[in-house]
């Protein structure tokens, strides 16, 4: 069964460092997303990406964040200068169309120290 894969599963970084979280969406999917879940809180939408550009972003997704689809398979989330409050589980998701369900990856747990 096709699945969304995320790497790494866990990343520890020092405050102020840049991190790149990687995702390989399901191959024939067209819409890509990043969500985050701070420990003990709800899952929050960060950004959606379609046709090689951002289609929606939340207020969380400020200038410190960027997304990219550098090739035909990977979808990355970059945090330029990490802060302690960026510590969270980050989920990548993809869908095949506008009215279809999202498939989620296993998540990357980011710990900023």
């Amino acid at each position, binding site marked *: 069964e096709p699945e*969304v894969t995320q790497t790494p599963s866990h990343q520890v970084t020092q405050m102020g460092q840049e991190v790149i979280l990687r995702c390989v969406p399901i191959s024939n999917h067209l*819409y890509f*997303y990043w*969500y985050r879940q701070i420990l003990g*809180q*709800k*899952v*929050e*939408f960060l950004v*959606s990406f*379609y046709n090689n550009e951002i*289609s*929606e972003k*939340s207020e969380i997704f400020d200038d410190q964040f960027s997304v990219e689809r550098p090739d035909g398979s990977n979808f990355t989330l970059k945090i330029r200068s990490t802060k302690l409050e960026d510590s969270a589980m980050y*989920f990548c*998701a993809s*869908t095949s169309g*506008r*009215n279809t*369900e*999202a*498939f*989620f*990856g*296993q*998540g990357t747990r980011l710990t900023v120290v």
Partner: protein
Amino acid sequence: AQSVTQPDIHITVSEGASLELRCNYSYGATPYLFWYVQSPGQGLQLLLKYFSGDTLVQGIKGFEAEFKRSQSSFNLRKPSVHWSDAAEYFCAVGHLNAGNMLTFGGGTRLMVKP
């Protein structure tokens, strides 16, 4: 603004008992509704979805949910809970006009007693 409320943060049921997890939403149009389950250390797995049509939808693992427009609810049910159902359950509403993003509820953590 769109929102999803799951009033129960924790629920404990005995194995074999029935289960109902509550979900209420606030959305300006016809909602697309989802239930996801998250086992410890795992990602989010789709249990079921409602887009249109029959308001009682069947999902995986014996779960079902009923969309009630008059009550703005989409409660998840299972007639007989198994120990392996212990997990966190998230209700979500999809926004077609906003990049198909999902707004999640706060989640309900289900514990199953032997």
